[in-house]
């Protein structure tokens, strides 16, 4: 298991390098001069030139990349042009909010989506099955930003039950109150995905012979479904959870904009507008890294669950679809 983990970590490196490369190239191609934007329209050509020198913007892309990578290895992401603070500090400040939002949404959607999927599979063709699957389908067809607005409309504007702006600052309960609407908006879509996928994964497993055997042994239905069927249905579900995290992060960016939730999403979008290269780079790379690591964790848990995979898995990420 350890060797496998190490192997996967090493394989990460080229992927991460490409991430940095992509971000670097794209941000350098963004039209507009950050130095000019920073100094404002009143600045003289000289001042702008000086700033460009200072920020190293006149060097070749390759040397800029080289410097950046060197810094990256030290954990230094450069300074934000706009805020004049180290990017890493800013990210450290803003990331927890996005993290809290993503994790709560993920937890809600898992707790709702997976059991529904399992029950629907065991009660295939029943009313429960039809209704939940239609709801799930509608759930995944909704734009998250629309759902967020509708929830705000109903619960904040009309009913006044829940706040719709910011993260709350008066203690834990207040934060939870502010967390409810944004995380539910995100959770609905993920829950729909999980419910549908769990159902189809379970349906495939239920047809298997070893489920017939488990039933023939006289085991209770609950045991057959959760111990025998679900454990086998789990690996593909886990893969989907990993992939869904990416959608969750995408959704978080949009949701943060609506709720003024002080997280990474809003940070990056604003930074793009302000041509703050450093912050954009640092932010996007950070989000990408987080996602890659989450996926690695997902893959590793896949190996943990399946003894065959553990026993002698040779493959790289290319081995699977």
């Amino acid at each position, binding site marked *: 298991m350890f060797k496998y983990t190490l192997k996967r970590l090493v394989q990460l490196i080229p992927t991460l390098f490409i991430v940095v490369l992509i971000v670097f190239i794209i941000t350098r191609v963004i039209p507009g001069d950050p130095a000019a934007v920073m100094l404002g329209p009143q600045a003289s050509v000289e001042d702008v030139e000086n700033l460009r020198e200072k920020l190293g913007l006149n060097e070749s892309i390759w040397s800029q990349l080289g410097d950046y990578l060197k810094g990256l290895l030290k954990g230094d992401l450069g300074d934000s042009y706009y805020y004049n603070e180290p990017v890493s500090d800013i990210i450290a400040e803003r990331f927890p909010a996005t993290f809290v939002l993503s994790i709560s949404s993920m937890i809600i959607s898992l707790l709702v989506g997976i059991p529904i999927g399992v029950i629907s599979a065991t009660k295939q063709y029943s009313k429960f099955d039809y209704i939940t699957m239609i709801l799930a389908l509608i759930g995944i067809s909704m734009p998250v930003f629309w759902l967020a607005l509708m929830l705000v409309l109903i619960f904040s504007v009309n009913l006044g039950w829940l706040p719709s702006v910011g993260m709350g600052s008066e203690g834990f309960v207040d934060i939870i109150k502010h967390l409810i609407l944004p995380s539910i908006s995100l959770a609905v879509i993920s829950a729909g995905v999980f419910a549908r996928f769990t159902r189809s994964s379970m349906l495939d497993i239920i047809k298997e012979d070893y489920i017939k055997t488990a039933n*023939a042994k006289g*085991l209770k239905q609950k045991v057959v479904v959760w111990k025998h069927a679900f454990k086998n249905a789990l690996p593909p579900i886990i893969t989907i959870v990993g992939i869904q995290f990416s959608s969750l992060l995408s959704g978080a960016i949009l949701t943060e904009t609506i709720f003024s939730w002080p997280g990474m999403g809003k940070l990056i979008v604003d930074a793009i507008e302000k041509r703050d290269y450093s912050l954009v780079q640092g932010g996007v790379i950070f989000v990408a890294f987080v996602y890659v690591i989450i996926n690695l964790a997902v893959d590793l848990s896949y190996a943990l669950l399946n003894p065959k995979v553990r026993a002698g898995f040779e493959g790289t990420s290319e081995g699977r679809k």
Partner: protein
Amino acid sequence: MMSRKQIEVKNLKTHFNTASGVVKAVDGVSFSIDKGKTLGIVGESGSGKSVTASSIMGLIPSPPGEICGGEIIFEGKDLLKCKKDELLDIRGKDIAMIFQDPMTALNPVFTVGAQISEAILAHQKISKEEAKNLAIKALETVGIPDAKSRYKSYPHEFSGGMRQRAVIAMGIVCNPKLLIADEPTTALDVTIQAQILELMKDLQNKLDTSILIITHDLGVIWEITDYVMVMYAGRTVEYADTITLYDRAKHPYIWGLLDSVPNLEDGKDKVLNTIKGNPPDLRATGDGCNFAGRCPYAQDICRKKQPELLEIEPDHFVACHFQTFDKTLEKRRGE
């Protein structure tokens, strides 16, 4: 006087409701198995043999299936009238079932030993340790060497024959009164087949278990069964003890089956005998004999009226309009 019958099935009917019609998978089947004896059910795919077995176990998925008629008398109870809890109790303990492909019959993410222990613990209130010991004993009984360490192995670490032995161990570990084996040797090599059948006979002697074996392989029937029931398109066409069947089978379908087995002594240019035609669509069985479409001796009455299963000599039943009263057909087979 105590009945020697372990299980008695009377007029069992199991239908499946599909989008394109009702499939009468089992349409009025009756048989019984004596204690310590082996009954074989023979038939081609779609004859209803597996559905019969699943009906006894109560494992018919519903929807779309439903058992809509008959009785299954086991230990004085009608299984079709039992409550869910009672069935759960019987399943795996009094009646055990093993399936065709041992690779897929075992859950790949649990050790073989754990799966056997699970079968024990589901029916007996004993400690995990005791269950483990019983499981290891069961593995030894079925001839798996080094049972203690094999307990911790996963299914994919066993060879095909060993796997089937392990599956059998799982089936017999609670000393069932009836063991149902659905094509237990079909997925195995010929040499391993013989071993497994030997093992089953052995276990039967030791444990006085009745066995219901389902197969399409006449060789298996000859090896291990005391009685045979031949099914075609959901109905019984003939029932007799094994030797009688080979010696004096009456139904043209069995003649076809017996004739289609290639004989080593035939020259290599001999064309293989086949039964012409295809099995009927079980959604549209008419009033006549289900085999009429393929029977070389079929006459008008065959297409109009379903033949009854009648006893033509002690313990030998046949469902055919001619074999019960008209002896002329028998002469024709010799030609």
